[in-house]
């Protein structure tokens, strides 16, 4: 019964390459198979999305993500310069008798269009990325955002991935590395965030930053420790106060090789199915404690 309320689980890390996508994809598979629950996996690592590669779903939809860039009609423009005044990023300027727009700087916020007293500015769409959706045989719906190469700002694509019609019962979000805006936009508003780390000085340092970021966003979190040496206990500093260790994965050449071939852990190693299902139940339990 407690399994029937909607849940959104983020998978983040701070450090790159610790196994976010490994966990996010296999967790989604475990949920689909153990619960028979509709699961949606959102790949919010839009700069370098890899979930699709590991799950190879059948694609059923693909759409571009567009933003609206300003365009000036010089027949109407009076060269008052109000547009340039309101632009916070200097993406529009009056240069002698012209209005010049710098598309690479533009945030597509619409301030200049709003501020123009003579309606000389209109907007034209510019594609900054795409979102595709597909389904795996296990019943995981994958929604992947992909930033167009050369675009600076991941926000519009991440937003589009997260704006899903009819949320399913469980959503898993594969976050980008780091702790900056792209990660925050992936993790904010989730019910629980799994932080994947490894027992190295880099893993430890970046985990600390990720925990602090989750705390600042008000998202409870737990840790999956990847690449532990066989027999090595989880170092104390990888489970800071109030951040439980949810799963341990040993350093294993077989896992690394399967990942290098683009195979999902859950599919390639039946022995990992039970621990991954257990991870899901743990996250449900911890997220539930919080909402009571």
């Amino acid at each position, binding site marked *: 019964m407690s399994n029937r309320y909607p849940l959104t689980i983020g998978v983040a890390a701070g450090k790159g390459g610790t196994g976010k996508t490994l966990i996010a994809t296999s967790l989604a598979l475990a949920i689909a198979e153990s619960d028979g629950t509709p699961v949606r996996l959102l790949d919010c690592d839009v700069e370098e999305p890899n979930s699709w590669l590991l799950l190879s779903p059948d694609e059923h939809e693909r759409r571009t993500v567009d933003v609206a860039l300003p365009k000036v009609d010089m027949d109407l423009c009076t060269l008052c310069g109000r547009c340039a005044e309101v632009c916070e990023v200097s993406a529009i300027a009056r240069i002698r008798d012209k209005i010049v727009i710098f598309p690479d700087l533009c945030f597509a916020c619409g301030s200049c269009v709003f501020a123009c007293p003579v309606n000389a500015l209109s907007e034209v769409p510019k594609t900054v990325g795409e979102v595709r959706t597909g389904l795996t045989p296990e019943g995981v719906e994958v929604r992947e955002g992909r930033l167009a190469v050369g675009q600076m700002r991941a926000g519009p694509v991440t937003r589009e991935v997260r704006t899903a019609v009819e949320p399913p019962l469980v959503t898993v979000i594969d976050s980008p590395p*780091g702790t900056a805006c792209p990660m925050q936009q992936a993790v*904010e508003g989730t019910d629980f965030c799994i932080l994947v780390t490894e027992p190295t000085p880099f893993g430890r340092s970046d985990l600390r930053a990720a925990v*602090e970021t989750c705390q*600042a966003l008000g998202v409870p979190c737990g840790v999956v420790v990847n690449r532990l040496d066989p027999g090595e206990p989880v170092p104390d500093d990888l489970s800071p106060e109030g951040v439980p260790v949810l799963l341990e994965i040993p350093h294993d050449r077989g896992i690394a090789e399967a990942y290098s071939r683009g195979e999902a852990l859950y599919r390639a190693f039946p022995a990992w199915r039970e621990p991954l299902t257990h991870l899901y139940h743990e996250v449900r339990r911890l997220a539930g404690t919080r909402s009571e």
Partner: protein
Amino acid sequence: MAATQSVRRVVILSGKGGTGKTTVTSCFADLTQPAVLVDADVDAANLHLMLTPEIISQREFWGAKVAVRDPAKCNGSGECERRCRFDAITEERVYDSRCEGCGLCVLTCPSGALTLETVLSGHVVEARTPYGPLASGRLVPAGESSGKLVTEVRNVADAVAEAEGLSLQLIDGPPGIGCTAIAALAGVDLALLVTEPSASGLHDLKRVRQLLGHFQIPASLIVNRCDINPETTESLRRWGVEERVPLLAALPFDEAVPRAVRAGVPLTRFAPSSPVSAGLRQAWDAVAAWLQSA
């Protein structure tokens, strides 16, 4: 000005995270004559962990603007929420992580309840290390404007390079291809791409290569943990030939690497005779020769 050599900048990038950028950067820092070392991965900065730095100065960087509401003036019109294109504001609150600081809500609020305020994004740190001066940045928890912070760190690095007459900068870049990566590669002479032979490593590498093509920056390649998947390593080498991204070194998995990282000492100093150290020395010689000739 005339006396100084032209400044050379090398950035270490990867697309995919965790492929060994920082380990490689620390070794190159050890192998070259003093260079200015730059950690441009401001939201997961780790280079300092390898270089035993002594901090000289740390200052705040106030980069981002966000909308701030005066509840006393708000008349609940909902205009801000309707207008905002970033879903960053509701009647209850402003979501700083989504707010772009564009000011549209400020312009359109009928009761003048909103203003833009500059917030603390992070810190810029200058340090001294046995390998050369280090400029790095550190985003505050849930901080904004990481791209601008990278640019600020790069400005500090340029100033240090000029003050100390150092002609080479080594920049440890962030993963990805977005604003921090673009800020890290602006104006560099060469990008070194560190990858691993995996399906995702190759996928991500192709996107970084495309980005570098955009900015017409030449690149070369280092494949880390090449023995995990020899077939993919071979594909990477062939890809490099086609794309003019020459493979400088294919480095095997080596137990000495995690030990060097734990010790906080560049591998080339920690275990100079290890196979990975040998491969990196060879790679650096190729880079140095390229920098001489270009």
